[in-house]
């Protein structure tokens, strides 16, 4: 227990030291551009670390193994959507980067303001993105609490861990901005790779005699577990969910920030070939979940997220548990810091927009916002109940609704107006709210239709309404 606690605290300390070094090398006064997009000077490796940094979150670590453990084959969609999203990134990210850099914008909402010449649209996008990011941040903090309390064998309560982790994140975001996140992301990636590859290979072998025998046993005991079911999470659920997730993949506001850190557009072209390989780390996360299924059975409901930590605790000593906990800690801190930075930058630029002939120095203001935003997230973390999964799914559907307007911004000949974009987003978000909060499902909208239709992700309906509204209102 003392060993695992030691490793956890050492990791937190190293993360803080890295950020202080980042801050010192940045020198004296820092502009908002330096703080939030690293002066747009990052090469392939730094951008890779940032983009990977925000993709491998606590959800991947705990949720990925939890899904394999709790649901089996439907979990495979998580590997699938990443690869398809990276194919799209080859064309999408250079297009965003090219425009965003020419316009010198720092945030997603500013991108929309400039693209459509409409501050109203920019403010709407800011509102959507902040509403979607808050639950996402809360989810990271909750994950952090679970990881630290489990891997310290209960010595640190989840609540204490959340307080300590949030304080550390605030300190290093304020000190060093995006550079600190990139440095910590590198440390995180090394630890996650070591832990996931190690556990994903060692656990199936020591517990079940290998990957083949492990799957053979699952196939014998749970014959339906390794294929998609005919209803519910069926083939049409799989394909529509992959497609919808791909469209939403790069719509997160903090992803725009990472895109703008790139030195040139070729950075994204190289990353499109690198990222799919990195995605395969998830395969080993699944192996851990499947190994746990046979050796620590019986976790139900939200507890499936504990599968990875439980099987690690049952099989190994505190050294390994500490390392896994530390890696998990960083998977919460890095995305958490990028989210905080993204909300702070968005707000700072709205409250204090850059003016001609005046240095845009809202950096201090943005940094002051960080502790305030963290406090709000803490409030929701301790107050929000079990509805978190609903909120996360809703957040994803919310940002996906920004895709049509973004896509249209690449094609001025399509004559999509700011009014059309606003109407489309409003209608799309309303449809998302009705389907996720109101409990309206595809089956209740299309009663009596076959499962091939009713299993389609309801987000698609919202997206179709969004596009139709956008085009119609633009033509008025």
């Amino acid at each position, binding site marked *: 227990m003392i060993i695992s606690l030691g490793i956890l605290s050492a990791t937190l300390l190293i993360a803080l030291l890295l950020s202080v070094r980042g801050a010192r090398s940045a020198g004296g006064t820092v502009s908002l551009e330096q703080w939030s997009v690293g002066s747009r000077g990052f090469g392939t490796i730094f951008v890779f670390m940032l983009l990977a940094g925000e993709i491998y979150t606590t959800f991947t670590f705990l949720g990925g193994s939890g899904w394999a453990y709790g649901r089996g084959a439907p979990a*495979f969609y998580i590997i699938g959507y990443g690869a398809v999203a990276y*194919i799209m990134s*080859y064309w999408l990210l250079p297009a965003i980067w090219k425009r965003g850099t020419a316009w010198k914008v720092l945030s997603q909402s500013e991108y929309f303001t400039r693209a459509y010449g409409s501050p109203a649209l920019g403010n709407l996008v800011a509102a959507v993105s902040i509403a979607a990011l808050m639950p996402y941040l809360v989810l990271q903090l909750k994950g952090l609490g679970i990881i630290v309390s489990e891997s310290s064998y209960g010595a640190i309560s989840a609540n204490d861990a959340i307080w300590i982790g949030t304080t550390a994140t605030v300190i290093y975001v304020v000190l060093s901005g995006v550079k600190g996140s990139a440095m910590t992301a590198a440390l995180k990636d090394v630890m996650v790779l070591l832990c996931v590859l190690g556990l994903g290979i060692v656990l199936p072998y020591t517990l079940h005699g290998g990957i083949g025998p492990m*799957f053979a046993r699952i196939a014998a005991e749970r014959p339906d577990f390794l*294929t*998609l079911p005919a209803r519910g999470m069926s*083939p049409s659920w799989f*394909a529509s969910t992959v497609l919808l997730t791909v469209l939403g993949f790069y719509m997160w506001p903090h992803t725009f920030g990472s895109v703008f850190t790139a030195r040139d557009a070729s950075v994204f072209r190289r990353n499109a*070939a690198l990222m799919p390989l990195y995605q395969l780390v998830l*395969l080993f996360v699944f192996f851990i979940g499947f190994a746990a299924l046979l050796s620590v059975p019986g976790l139900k409901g939200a507890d499936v997220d504990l599968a990875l930590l439980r099987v690690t605790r049952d099989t190994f000593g505190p050294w390994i548990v500490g390392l896994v906990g530390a890696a998990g800690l960083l998977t919460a801190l890095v995305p958490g810091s990028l989210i905080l930075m993204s909300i702070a930058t968005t707000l700072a630029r709205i409250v204090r927009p850059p003016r001609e002939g005046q240095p845009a120095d809202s950096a201090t203001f943005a940094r002051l916002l960080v502790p305030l935003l963290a406090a709000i997230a803490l409030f929701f973390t301790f107050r929000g109940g079990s509805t978190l999964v609903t909120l996360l799914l809703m957040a994803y559907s919310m940002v996906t609704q920004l895709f049509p307007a973004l896509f249209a911004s690449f094609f001025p000949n399509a004559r999509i107006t700011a009014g059309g974009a606003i109407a489309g987003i409003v209608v799309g978000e309303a449809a998302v709210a009705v389907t996720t909060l109101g409990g309206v499902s595809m089956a209740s909208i299309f009663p009596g239709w076959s499962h091939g239709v009713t299993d389609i992700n309801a987000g698609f309906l919202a997206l179709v309404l969004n596009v139709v509204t956008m085009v119609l209102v633009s033509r008025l």
Partner: protein
Amino acid sequence: MTKPYRLLALVPAVAILGAPWFANRVEPRILGMPFLLGWIVFWVLMTSVVMAIIGALDVRDP
């Protein structure tokens, strides 16, 4: 999308999106994995290969 070799990118995308129809079974197992998982993993690897090829061709002929 003017250059024909860029259409190669559609192959892994279709293979992954269509996976539940092309490959929704356990046998034959690939490296011990159920066929569905093995199929998706194979196409994720191919995504990397295809994107590297397109990238290399685009550098030569921007």
